[in-house]
């Protein structure tokens, strides 16, 4: 029941005094109901400029063909597939937060799941745009679908991981979209019932006529649980299949059985970094410090250090197995990776993903907003390099030394990449303006049991073990949204 208070030793998930249900609605809907401030406009101008650049660069690619990229006959995949894998990986954190943490009943997910899921959807859009762009002739995308055609019909090859990927990415995108939108319905209804005129009409259509009756809520929760249950294996399968694009080939450096778990860990690692990048700014600009608290930031940092360490183990294992396999080509691929002409990319990857994030073991760093944000950028860069290293360093020196080459990006490669970041941020900034960036109903659900004011009430009632109370008050020190003076006098 909603009144069930948690143990006092757990940190609060909602801070601040006098937080009522109405207050939660007001706080979360402020960016949606008020005109945007200067920070938003600045961000939006920058992002939409990037999106325009993307539009131009992609159109250029379609017009002149992928010859406008820096690819050559040895390196047939470079920034395109790097960007694709990078974006898909970033998307994974959203599903992890919304699905896996729901199954584990982690209540702290309630205030970050909505924006993380939105991030998933926008990231997968960016990823999918790379797939279409790298075909060169985008209208040929239809041939990746098993449709009857005039050649026989000649069907797509279901033995190929690239076709598995078509199914995985499209399923992932559509299931994430459905999950996200179903969760949004109650919150859209909240906006609808507070709006007037045309706004009310628009949100009314979007709300599907949601009323919040008992049966609707009961079924809603069942649906959420089922979707979480199937999204969990789905998200793990998606990056496993992406990794099989490489792992099932015979290319030294790609042909490894460790790839699926290694890619999944890397995806969650980079995804959480992107969540931090976005939310640390969003909580400040949108004034949501009471809902996305230091506890949330630290919890995400803990996931980052865990998955980052898994990635480090994977890098080392790969290197060791190359040596241990006694396969000459494999050994060469890995020696060349770290000590060949692309040594700078590999060591950037290793430093950004493995060495620097280790500072997160230190409590002070984990609880420092500036440091966390800086680290999240470092990890984003590192994870981009990881994909670049895997793809380009494995390809650039193939079995035939006469065809060895280097990859030099053209302005189109760079513009498509920078532009895709613009597309991502444009979508995200529009999202925070028109839809609630925090799941309102889900935050209300934890108000009575897990908020600071509820804990305060329990403390004031005096029926608390003294050590536990002290432990709890100590744990509050890390919060930037809690005034400690109140507790000192008690």
């Amino acid at each position, binding site marked *: *029941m*909603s*009144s069930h208070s948690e143990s006092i030793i757990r940190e609060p998930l909602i801070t601040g005094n006098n937080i009522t*249900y*109405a207050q939660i*609605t007001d706080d979360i809907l402020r960016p949606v109901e008020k005109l945007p401030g200067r920070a938003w406009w600045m961000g939006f101008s920058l992002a939409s400029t990037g999106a325009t650049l993307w539009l131009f660069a992609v159109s250029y690619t379609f017009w002149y063909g992928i010859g406008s990229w820096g690819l050559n006959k040895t390196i047939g995949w470079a920034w395109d597939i790097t960007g694709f894998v990078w974006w898909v990986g970033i998307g994974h954190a959203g599903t992890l937060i919304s699905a896996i943490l729901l199954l584990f009943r982690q209540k702290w997910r309630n205030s970050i799941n909505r924006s993380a899921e939105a991030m998933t959807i926008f990231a997968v859009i960016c990823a999918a745009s790379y797939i279409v762009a790298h075909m060169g002739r985008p209208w040929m995308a239809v041939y990746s679908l*098993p449709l009857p055609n005039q050649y*026989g*019909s*000649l*069907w*797509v*090859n*279901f*033995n190929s991981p690239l076709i*598995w990927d078509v*199914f*995985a990415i499209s*399923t992932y995108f*559509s*299931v994430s979209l*459905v999950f996200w939108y*179903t969760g949004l*319905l*109650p919150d859209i*209804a*909240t906006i*609808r*019932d*507070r709006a007037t005129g045309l706004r009310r009409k628009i949100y*009314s259509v*979007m*709300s*599907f*006529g*949601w*009323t*919040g*009756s*008992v*049966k*609707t*809520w*009961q*079924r809603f*929760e*069942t*649906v959420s649980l*089922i*979707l979480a249950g*199937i*999204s969990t*294996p*789905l998200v793990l*399968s998606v990056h496993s*299949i992406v990794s099989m694009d490489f792992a099932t080939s015979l290319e030294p450096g790609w042909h490894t059985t460790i790839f699926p778990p290694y890619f999944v860990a890397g995806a969650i690692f980079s995804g959480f970094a992107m969540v931090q990048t976005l939310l640390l700014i969003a909580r400040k600009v949108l004034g949501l410090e009471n809902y996305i608290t230091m506890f949330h930031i630290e919890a995400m940092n803990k996931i980052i250090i865990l998955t980052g360490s898994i990635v480090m183990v994977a890098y080392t294992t790969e290197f060791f197995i190359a040596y241990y396999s006694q396969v000459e080509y494999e050994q060469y691929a890995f020696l060349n990776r770290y000590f060949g002409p692309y040594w700078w990319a590999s060591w950037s990857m290793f430093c950004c993903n493995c060495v620097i994030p280790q500072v997160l073991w230190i409590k002070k760093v984990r609880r420092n907003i500036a440091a966390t944000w800086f680290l999240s950028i470092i990890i984003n860069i590192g994870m981009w390099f990881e994909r670049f290293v895997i793809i380009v360093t494995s390809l650039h020196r193939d079995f035939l030394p006469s065809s060895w080459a280097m990859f030099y990006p053209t302005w189109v490669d760079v513009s498509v990449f920078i532009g895709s970041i613009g597309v991502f941020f444009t979508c995200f900034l529009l999202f925070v303006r028109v839809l609630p960036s925090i799941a309102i*109903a889900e935050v*209300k*659900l934890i108000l*009575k049991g897990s908020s600071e004011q509820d804990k305060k009430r329990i403390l004031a009632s005096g029926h608390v073990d003294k050590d536990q109370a002290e432990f709890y008050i100590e744990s509050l020190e890390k919060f930037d949204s809690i005034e400690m003076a109140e507790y000192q006098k008690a």
Partner: protein
Amino acid sequence: MSSTKFILGCFEDPDEMMDGITLLQQNSVPIYDVYTPMPIHGIEAKLGIKDSRLGYAAFMFGCLGGTVIFSLVYYFLVHDWPMNIGGKPAFAIPDFIPVTFEWTVLYTAFGTVATFFFATHLFPGRTPRVMDYRATNDRFVIAIDAKGNTPHADITNLLKEAGAVEVKHNERKYVSYEI
């Protein structure tokens, strides 16, 4: 005869609303529905609402999705156009697993959500049947059909006793129809 159609007990607190339900039930006042801004755990048992059967639907859709894609792939690669890839069998079940899995998930997700929308009458553009605008914001609303439930003053008192901050006597069932 009173023109009141529905009596709404608006609560600020979900637990007080639950007390209100208990009190009404003890006094044999039937409850039409309850509207809340968030899911209330334990309310279904109290109001005698059966467990949702969406799980069965989800399972069926999953089975359907898996069967459809597996049959399709069998038709494409084994029956219609078998390919000789290094002399290996055309019916390569392990290779069919990824797509079979993906479509199982796809059908489950879309099927379950479609069933949910169908069963709950949700679709884009449906006119919202709102009894109280604050029920999606900060009010927990118990709705009682006024017809046959008299005297209304007693019901009002019961709701007030349980802690309702406001009791409304609405002459129309849905306020959202007024605009």
